[in-house]
């Protein structure tokens, strides 16, 4: 019972980017942004499995207070490598490198990104960085926490810190080059008529993300570089025994790593800004405000890093300033949530899988974002800093937010990418399983945190067991929710129903070209004359434009 518009039976194009050329060289040496996006899809999924395996080990081990599954050193490696794999190799690249790479040229009406060869280079850099990090994981592991605090990481840890740090350093350049490519593409490659305020909000979100990528990533690069020098050559920047300052490391580290979380969430917000108008068949409420909010998040996001350090013994004045700024950065996100919700009113809403993910995002990002207030608030942070409250908060945003956005986007654009539809009912069930599993996994962790269970603990006092068992049970359900799409999306690529150019239909420029698109995206450069999400004036979509007025006075 799909509520997609009725279209004549769809035709699968004869020649498209997937069959334009054959052979492994045509994939490994491609400069087609769409093929590069698929290369990234495979690699980030592989790292998602790696990170997911570590997560599974963590939750299994934490079923009992005394932990019989892993030794303390192994457990510490599990949570560290879970963080490193998921943050640097899955979350940061996922939406930009898979969906952004595929869609941005199509959305702006260009034949490719500004620098196609640099695009391919960025994938190879990612693979090389990943190789170094995997090498570290298998030859001694990494047990410093993904935050690499000194002097633990540079002096005291007995794990393979140097290769891991080198791996993350290298992968950072992949991020920088992707951001550079996106920024230049949006500035110089837009089709005629595609003005800034006709751009889809997905593009605005990636523009803001790219600003953060290019300004922030070089700082983590040099910080990790200095830390690696300290580890390997015994220098003393961050080692108090040699006159160095461990807090300097924290400042340099968080100067990037806080904006990094906006790199992870802004693209997902961009996806949601596409899904809700499409499945409510209505313009996004407050387009300009949502675009401005993306930029505001990117800018203010650079001014809050010390909120990770409220309890390091820093000046009280500094803490107060950064707490104030932290509350300010919450406002643009709130504005977006209100605008998304307002878009629903007066719409014509269908519950296809992408929209289910959008609703899921709305609810889970709401909780994740609101719980950030407790952490940014100095009085409560004293108690919940470095407890499971923090772990729950960021998983609600990273998984409940970013991963929901990623999966929603994958489902929404799968027909464009592969030319075929995924199985709708199975996909809806998977989305529901994911939502339930997620909440069961992470909500108890808020309670664990306020009750005082610190994070990164391989054993815990027995009074914390009940919530831990709930969390592990949820994780097993969550795993099913992840595995199902991986299976049926692959199945759909070969056996799914043929989708046609625009199955939903949606208003973006990417839907005015065949599914899958030809290598050059558009046979003729499009000229844009319409506003974004303007269902009322898009006669080409074949919808009943006039009759919808019945809803307008509700």
């Amino acid at each position, binding site marked *: 019972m799909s509520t997609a518009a009725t279209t004549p039976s769809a035709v699968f194009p004869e020649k498209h980017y997937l069959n334009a050329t054959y052979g492994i060289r045509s994939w490994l040496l491609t400069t087609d942004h769409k093929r590069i996006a698929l290369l990234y899809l495979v690699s980030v999924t592989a790292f998602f499995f790696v990170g997911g395996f570590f997560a599974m080990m963590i939750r299994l081990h934490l079923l009992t207070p005394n932990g019989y599954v892993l030794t303390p050193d192994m457990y510490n490696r599990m949570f560290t490598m879970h963080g490193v794999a998921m943050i640097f190799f899955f979350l940061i690249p996922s939406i930009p490198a898979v969906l952004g790479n595929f869609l941005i040229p199509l959305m702006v009406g260009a034949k490719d990104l500004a620098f196609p060869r640099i695009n391919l280079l960025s994938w190879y850099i990612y693979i090389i960085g990943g190789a170094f990090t995997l090498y570290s994981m298998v030859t001694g592991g990494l047990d410093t926490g993904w935050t690499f605090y000194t002097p633990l990481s540079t002096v005291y*840890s007995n794990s393979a810190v140097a290769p891991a740090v080198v791996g993350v350093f290298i992968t950072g350049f992949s991020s920088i080059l992707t951001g550079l490519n996106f920024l230049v593409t949006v500035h110089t490659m837009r089709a005629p008529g595609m003005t800034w305020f006709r751009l889809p909000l997905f593009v605005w979100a990636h523009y803001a993300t790219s600003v953060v990528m290019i300004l922030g990533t070089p700082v983590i690069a040099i910080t990790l570089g200095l830390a690696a020098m300290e580890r390997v050559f015994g220098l003393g920047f961050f080692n108090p025994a040699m006159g160095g300052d461990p807090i300097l490391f924290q400042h340099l580290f968080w100067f990037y790593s806080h904006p990094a979380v906006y790199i992870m969430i802004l693209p997902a917000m961009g996806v949601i800004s596409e899904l809700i108008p499409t499945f409510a068949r209505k313009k996004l409420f407050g387009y300009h405000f949502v675009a401005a909010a993306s930029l505001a998040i990117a800018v203010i996001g650079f001014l809050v890093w010390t909120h990770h350090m409220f309890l390091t013994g820093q000046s009280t004045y500094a803490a107060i300033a950064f707490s104030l700024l932290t509350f300010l950065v919450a406002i643009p996100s709130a504005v977006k949530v209100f605008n998304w919700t307002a878009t629903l009113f007066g*719409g014509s809403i269908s519950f296809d899988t992408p929209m289910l993910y959008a609703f899921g995002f709305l609810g889970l990002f709401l909780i994740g974002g609101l719980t950030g207030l407790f952490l940014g608030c100095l*009085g*409560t942070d004293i108690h919940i800093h470095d407890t499971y409250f923090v772990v729950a908060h960021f998983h609600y945003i990273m998984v409940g937010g970013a991963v929901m956005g990623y999966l929603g986007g994958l489902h929404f654009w799968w027909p464009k990418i592969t030319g075929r539809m995924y199985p709708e009912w199975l996909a809806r069930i998977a989305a529901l399983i994911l939502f339930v599993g997620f909440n069961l996994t992470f909500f108890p962790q808020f309670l664990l945190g306020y009750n*005082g269970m610190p994070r990164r603990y391989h054993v815990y006092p027995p009074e914390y067991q009940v919530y831990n068992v709930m969390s592990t049970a949820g994780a097993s359900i969550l795993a099913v929710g992840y595995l199902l799409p991986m299976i049926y999306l692959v199945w759909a690529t070969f056996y799914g129903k043929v989708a046609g150019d625009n199955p939903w239909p949606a208003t973006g420029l990417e839907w005015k070209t065949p599914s899958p698109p030809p290598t050059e995206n558009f046979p003729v450069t499009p000229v844009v004359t319409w506003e974004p999400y303007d269902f009322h004036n898009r006669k080409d979509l074949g919808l*009943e*434009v006039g009759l919808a007025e019945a809803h307008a006075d*509700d």
Partner: protein
Amino acid sequence: MQSPLPFFPEQASSIAGSVDALFSFILLTCLFFAVLVTLLAIFAAFRYRRQSPNEVGADIEGNLALEVGWTVIPLIIALGMFAWGAVIYTHFRTAPKDTIDIYVVGKQWMWRLEQPNGKREINELHIPVGRNIKLIMGSEDVIHNFYVPAFRVKMDVVPGRYNTLWFQPTKIGKYHFFCSQYCGTNHAVMGGWVTVMDPAEYSAWLSDESGEVNPVSAGEKLFTQLACNTCHLPNGTGRAPSLNGVYGAKVLLADGTTVTADDSYIRESILQPKAKIVAGYQPVMPTFQGLVSEEQILNLTAYIKSLQSQPVPAKGAGIAPANAAGKK
């Protein structure tokens, strides 16, 4: 002690109530907005569900009044939360004057806590109820963190500096404390128990010496052993200022500024004597870097602190006169 599904720990310190109150305020506010948005979304999902396959939604661009409203109102609420939190935090970071000072050293993977009379504990802290307690904490290796959930307080313990943490326990009992900054293999077992006792019982426990070393007397011995007493004559006639009464007082420096002679100042004076020169004295003190351990510095500090009550000579102490505002 606790139900299997607890929501928050016991409140056992003077600040716990405020923290919980603030938490509840933020919680209720967030619940309000979360429920509001959720109900609105669910309502809209039903009310505006698609009736026919080719239907479209209404042509609405936005509404300036709403945008301003839902920017300004959350901003005001956010600022309120910020302000309340800042007040609690400032109170938390400002230790009162009349504290019982406990010296804490964290190292992989244990805690050594020293009472004012030198009685030392490993992974245990005994304190009297109703008194202000100040922990002065240092680390011997990596960053640790001392966290007592029932008191709602924690503070990082950073190598190369001292961090202080104060609280006032309000309920007799035993409360967990944890290391709350990942520090390596046994981070999760680096904790212990804070025992809050009746003040009389605490005094009794404290004076039960049975084989403990008094830091004040250890410090006094060191003071002589290291020849500090040859320059720091108590009557102020030596090459160095008398240390009577200096602990906690304001010291006048050669460059006209004043500094409070706290634990950090004393530690710096021992390790980097040229950093701050007392007015009227020559920079001749040798450094003891590499010659004293952290524990010995703690003992010397305890001894110097015990000189607070000794008579201050009229000339030859470094203490700033009462009306010296301290230039710059």
